[in-house]
């Protein structure tokens, strides 16, 4: 997980997405504890309020839950939920940009399809 201070994305969004990526990759498994606010704050040199804001997004979406006095844990079913969410975002995250670049390069629909097929063959 990396925080890019020059990114157009705010730091708290990057924290939320970084944790999501870790859950998707299995680095943070379901029902396991995630690092504390202090750990995120110290490791990435960010204000604890920023780290809290990022984690609260995940709490609000039931990806992560708080156990009083113990810390924060990955919810059961979080991975599946995140996969669904990322699938919904796939078009906006990848296809829109791909088509814009294709247009700049005068690549036809056929060209793109051929390339996608090539990708699957490899």
């Amino acid at each position, binding site marked *: 997980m990396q*925080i890019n*201070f*020059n*990114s*157009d994305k*705010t*730091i708290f969004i990057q924290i939320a997405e970084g944790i999501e990526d870790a859950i998707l990759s299995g680095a943070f498994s379901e029902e396991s504890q995630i690092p504390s*606010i*202090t750990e995120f*704050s*110290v490791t*990435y*040199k*960010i*204000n*604890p*309020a*920023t780290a809290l804001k990022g984690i609260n997004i995940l709490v609000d979406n039931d990806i992560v839950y708080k156990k009083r006095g113990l810390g924060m844990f990955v919810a059961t079913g979080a991975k599946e939920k995140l996969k669904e969410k990322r699938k919904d975002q796939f078009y906006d995250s990848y296809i829109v940009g791909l088509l814009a670049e294709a247009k700049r390069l005068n690549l036809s629909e056929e060209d793109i399809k051929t390339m996608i097929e090539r990708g699957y063959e490899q």
Partner: protein
Amino acid sequence: MNCIEVKNITKNYGRTCALDNVSLCFEENKIYGLLGRNGAGKSTLLNVITNRIFADSGEVFVDGQPIEGNDAALGKLYLMSEKTNYPEKMKVKHAFSWSKNFYPGFDAAYAASLAEKFELDTNKMIKSLSTGYNSIFKLIIALSVNTPYVLLDEPVLGLDANHRELFYRILLEKYSEHPCTIIISTHLIEEVSGLIENVIIIKKSKIIKDESCEELLSQGYTVSGSASNVDTYISNQNVLGADTIGGLKSAYILGTRNTEIPEGIEISKLDLQKLFIKLTN
């Protein structure tokens, strides 16, 4: 409400105005970045707040109490300044033990543990410390006094990259576990931009920005593309400055972003350092 309140402070040095009718509020348990160019008035402000120099007019209140001649209010503040206010021939370890007499909350064991982390030899005399270690010595005291308000004027002066990194980590650890109000005056803006919650920009003795860091950053953005496209897009906008190279242009804007982005235009973030440079040029 617990806070440091600065009310209409004006300070002149002869004909030079250092602070011009400055009013501010530093809220409880927040980390502030006090940014300004050389000679903007940062150190004067910190010294006025801690009653080390006296303003020509205006007042400072700590938790509602005026600071003037008020030991109880002043005891809540600690300023790490450029000046080393300890006797030169005193050894570091004695400076630590003396600090307890002035600041009852001083944690000598914690100071000793920090000295070990920074590899500061506490048997050395203060005057024999290098610039970097002099800063480290003062930082350790600032981190160990446990006052509700800690003011750091150029805390990382002369520190190498490793020690700066260590300092930021220790500061955040300390702040997470025992929140207090921290005011950091620094020129190394990039290094603190993630750390600070609120930012205050002082320019030529006046406050020009005083808001949450996130809020301020959300207002600044860069528009780049061909010069003609950029010029069309930025007309009627608050343009802070622009750079051109060949037919390409990047303009720096302060304001709300247009949601519609025309083709051939790229919008990207303006980081705190760049924003600061553009605002204070």
